[in-house]
């Protein structure tokens, strides 16, 4: 027999419906818990306006809160606030007087009248702690909640009760509620990060664990934890059959024709070593072949990137004008890793991107307030890109010179191939070298080549068979250390 899935009432809050796998269940009683300032009022108000905008009616019942005028003034700064809906489909009512004067029973009758008269589809009770405090006994409080639950069921109205916390899991409010969402704020160094967790969601599945969220002028936006959201890629990755040319003939030759389509390739190199130009070659070559490309840049602005590429003959400006290449620039400072990754995936999907160049992928890691998550998130990102047959090229920063030539640990396992760009010091000259240090599932030329950057971009030169320790960055010729074979004056950096 087929499983019957309960229908859902979308919250209209970006990301929250993903966490809730569709939204709240109509007629349910939900708790929204969090300390003052955690975002309960913004979230429940956004729910109310979303419900009203989609044709429903919301009753926003205040018990312990600011005045309605102040509440509306504060809400008016958010994009979801729609003044014409206030009084028409979003009704603000104060329940404090009946509660204080006559207790929960009087408040229940007020709610019943409101729900029946206005065909309310969403009831928010802000400051619901006052209910508990005003009830003469736990039994009376439980009785109120029981009656409210029945009322919600028969009117198919969904209720959200805002509380500072659910003190005890044995609390009657917890036992009777269909769901509990908690909001919290983490202090990490000097940053404060808002997070949300669904502690209970009766009768339906949801994304477990904490998910970060932001409150901005756009309102409340939840970013489901990427490694949880993409626990399984959206599609099963196919075996790569075709090669994607990087647009640098000598490098394509080292890779038996190019990198495998749908594979993730890291380009490790020092600042100025040519990573960005290689990325521009890759995207220009894709555009030439009719494959749409995207740059996600964390350091260089679109103008600077375009200028650099055009300066060495890569016509990225033309492809930008044609729309076959796009550049997104974003500072990693104070960003949330899930916001970056999910924004990127949305863009990839919306624009049918086939080639992706992330300039400074390690910046994503530095943006994360939870470093232990970085490898999980990046692995999930690469898996999802593979599943969508997108070929990502990821530029990774390395020291200018020295022994370090490995991809940082968190990233190495997620990459199918690694290209290393090195500055090498030899007899008071700096030379640029390139090598393919890893190409999973593919033949490749393991030699170390010198390369230059000229009027036609990156040009791969000859091998260095007579020098040693090139990857260390401090090469030596056999014997007493002569100039490496094949080196021509002027090819140094």
């Amino acid at each position, binding site marked *: 027999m087929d499983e019957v899935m309960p229908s859902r009432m979308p919250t209209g809050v970006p990301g929250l419906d993903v966490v809730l796998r569709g939204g709240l269940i109509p007629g349910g009683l939900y708790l929204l818990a969090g300390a003052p300032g955690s975002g309960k009022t913004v979230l429940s108000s956004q729910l109310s306006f979303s419900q009203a905008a989609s044709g429903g009616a919301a009753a926003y019942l205040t018990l312990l809160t600011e*005045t309605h005028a102040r509440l*509306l003034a504060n809400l008016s700064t958010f994009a979801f606030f729609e003044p014409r809906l206030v*009084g028409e489909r979003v009704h603000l009512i104060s329940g404090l*007087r009946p509660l204080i004067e006559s207790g929960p029973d009087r408040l229940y009758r007020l709610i019943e009248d409101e729900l029946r008269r206005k065909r309310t589809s969403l009831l928010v009770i802000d400051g619901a702690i006052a209910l508990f405090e005003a009830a003469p006994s736990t039994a009376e409080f439980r009785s109120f909640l029981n009656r409210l639950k029945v009322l919600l069921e028969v009117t198919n109205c969904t209720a959200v009760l805002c509380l500072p916390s659910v003190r005890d899991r044995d609390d009657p409010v917890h036992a009777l509620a269909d769901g509990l969402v908690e909001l919290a704020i983490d202090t990490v160094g000097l940053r404060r990060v808002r997070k949300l967790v669904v502690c209970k969601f009766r009768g339906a599945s949801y994304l477990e664990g904490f998910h970060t969220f932001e409150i901005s002028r756009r309102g409340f936006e939840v970013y489901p934890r990427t490694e949880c959201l993409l626990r399984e890629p959206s599609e099963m990755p196919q075996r790569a059959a075709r090669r994607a040319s990087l647009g640098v003939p000598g490098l394509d030759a080292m890779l038996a024709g190019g990198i495998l389509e749908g594979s993730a390739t890291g380009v490790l190199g020092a600042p100025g070593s040519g990573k960005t130009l290689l990325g521009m070659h890759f995207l220009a070559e894709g555009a030439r072949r009719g494959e749409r490309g995207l740059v996600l840049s964390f350091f260089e602005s679109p103008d600077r990137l375009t200028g650099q590429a055009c300066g060495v003959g890569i016509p990225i400006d033309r492809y930008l004008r044609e729309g076959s290449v796009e550049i997104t620039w974003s500072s990693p400072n104070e960003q949330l890793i899930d916001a970056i990754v999910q924004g990127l995936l949305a863009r990839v999907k919306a624009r049918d991107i086939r080639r992706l160049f992330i300039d400074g992928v390690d910046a994503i890691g530095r943006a994360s307030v939870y470093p232990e998550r970085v490898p999980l998130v990046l692995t999930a990102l690469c898996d999802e890109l593979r599943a969508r047959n997108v070929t990502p090229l990821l530029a990774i920063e390395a020291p200018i010179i020295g022994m370090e030539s490995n991809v940082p640990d968190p990233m190495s396992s997620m990459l199918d191939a690694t290209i290393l760009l090195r500055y090498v010091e030899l007899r008071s000259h700096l030379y640029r070298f390139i090598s393919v240090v890893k190409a999973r599932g593919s033949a490749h030329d393991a030699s170390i080549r010198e390369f230059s950057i000229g009027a036609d971009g990156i040009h791969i030169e000859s091998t260095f068979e007579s020098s040693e320790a090139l990857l260390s960055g401090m090469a030596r010729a056999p014997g007493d250390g002569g100039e490496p074979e094949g080196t021509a004056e002027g090819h140094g950096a």
Partner: protein
Amino acid sequence: MKSIVIVEDEVDLAELLQEHLESRGYRVGVAFDGKAGLSRILDDLPDVVLTDIMMPLMDGLEMLAKLKERPATAAIPVIVMSAIDPDHPHPRLRKPFRLEELDDEIDRALGGGPLASGA
């Protein structure tokens, strides 16, 4: 002495307005929802009604419509205090407002202070 009925579901605001207007010499009655407000106005027949719009049990516009239907209350001056701007013909105090603005509107509605003779 002139009388005023305040209909407002936000208790703290209603009580503050009541105290202020009493200190100015008015006789003030208060109701906390539209239904109770209607009943209070029919009983008191005040010189001015000061009402909110969004309230439980009966909203302000419905209450004003019922006042309009009754000859005894149809001509009572009304001042609407609201953060929203629904369609109605009455003077409006946009929430949040200052007490001086309230005083001005009350004086205008009554044609003077608490002891004024004209309405």
